[in-house]
């Protein structure tokens, strides 16, 4: 989030924070971010009504000039999260730098297995530590993630990049922005055709 917000081209005005992550981690870590960048952050669930309410709470903050962390998903999330689960995570994993699609490597942005669990690390076990995966140069998911382009403005959208053969994370997940645009592209085309017909 800091990487996105500190970019001069960022157009992000508010965040819906992922409910499952916060169920475990709580949301105290978001509080300094909301203050520093003056953005509302609303912890939100995944049902349609959750999303609607999360957006409403976010917009209400923007209208009132507030920038706080609010919890829409209170039936699952507590401010400090699930502390026994966090302890287990800390025992097994340590914080490591991680490469993010379209953004590059971010320090302290991932989890890796601690030394005593290293033998379970697939990278080491299968000898693929030094294998690197090239990102497709055609994938614009980084720009989509930063809100700089819409998924259908990417040249690979629905041509080289489809849910069956995705180039980036936003097309891989069925809930990703590109996958959603892909699913509804037929409706958009049909709607536009109908509008044209009624005009002529």
């Amino acid at each position: 989030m800091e990487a996105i917000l500190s970019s001069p081209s960022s157009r992000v005005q508010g965040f819906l924070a992922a409910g499952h992550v916060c169920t475990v981690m709580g949301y105290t870590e978001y509080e300094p971010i909301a203050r520093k960048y003056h953005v509302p952050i609303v912890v939100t669930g995944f049902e349609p009504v959750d999303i609607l309410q999360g957006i409403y709470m976010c917009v209400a903050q923007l209208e009132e000039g507030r920038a706080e962390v609010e919890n829409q998903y209170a039936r699952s999330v507590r401010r400090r999260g699930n502390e026994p689960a966090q302890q287990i995570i800390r025992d097994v994993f340590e914080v490591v730098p991680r490469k993010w699609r379209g953004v590059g490597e971010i320090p302290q942005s991932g989890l890796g297995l601690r030394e005593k669990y290293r033998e379970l690390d697939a990278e080491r076990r299968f000898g693929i530590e030094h294998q690197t995966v090239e990102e497709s140069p055609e994938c614009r998911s980084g720009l989509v993630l930063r809100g700089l382009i819409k998924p259908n403005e990417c040249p690979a959208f629905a041509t080289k990049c489809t849910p069956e053969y995705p180039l980036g994370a936003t097309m891989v997940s069925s809930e990703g922005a590109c996958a959603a645009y892909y699913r509804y592209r037929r409706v958009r085309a049909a709607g536009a055709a109908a509008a044209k017909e009624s005009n002529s």
Partner: protein
Amino acid sequence: VNQDFSLSCPIPISQYPQILLAHGGGGKLMHQLIEKMFLSAFQNPLIETRHDGAVIDLQNARLAFTTDSYVVRPLFFPGGDIGRLAVHGTVNDLAMCGARPLCLSAALILEEGLPMETLWRIVQSMQQAAVQAGVQFVTGDTKVVDRGKGDGIFINTAGIGLVRPCLQVAPARVRSGDMVLLIGDVGRHGIAIMAVREGLAFDSVIESDSAPVVDLVMQLLDEGVEIHCMRDLTRGGLASAAVEIAEASGLEIRLDEKTIPVREDVRGACELLGFDPLYVANEGRFIAFVPPASAEKALQILRSHALGQGAAVIGQANSGHAGMVAMTNAIGTTRMIDMLSGEQLPRIC
């Protein structure tokens, strides 16, 4: 003579050089594989009906024929086991063709080291399920593979059944205006399996809905309900079945979310895991397409049967966008229902 020269066609699937798990997930990649590789290689009028089984016209009889393989892990789960599934899945596929199942075959692929006691439990379970569904195992095959080369046991069953004269039940028979009937709540089988596999404990044990639906189908046909098409809601769930029928019939299908029964415990588990119950597998559920005039009678018949007490009209076919499934959801918006590429994965954010 150029020895390398051959008349064989190029591989019809170029995007993936290897088979992925998603190619068996009941979604788009599986359909692509079936369409581009199997249908194109084996093309004939029977396979092209794209039904759960083929209906073959013989001189004095109409025979339905189908096959299915079962590779479930764990082998035993709340509400069933691989043996019961291997019977229910195949007899239900026959029933979806409007057939009364007659005989089954069983091919068992066993892994070296499988406990004999486990095999015996599965075989007994197959026998009981066959009796319950009114079929007999009449032939079979056994192979044993090296330790580590199988998952304990894989079962294939094939089945034949009799279709009454003149009965046509197939996706191509669905008409604009047909009502979509669902026989009961959805999502139980997939969640039951997931709960055992991932060690998830809920307040109550969620049991698989695995059951033979033959009786239900025969009752509908015996009472003279006009059925245009039926489809069981196995891998890929209700959503994939609806999309398959919309595509094969060239019609649009509108569903109404409020009318689709999902048990509270299943809904809760789905919310926790980030699953959509519409895509979760069932093993004793089907949808039927019937003309509006038959809908009320069909509902009454279904609801009078133990397996169909939760039956409901959940939507209607229309001649709008060919091949599209749209669902009006509880908050009044319309959502497009598409097939997934592969299997549903738990939400991780």
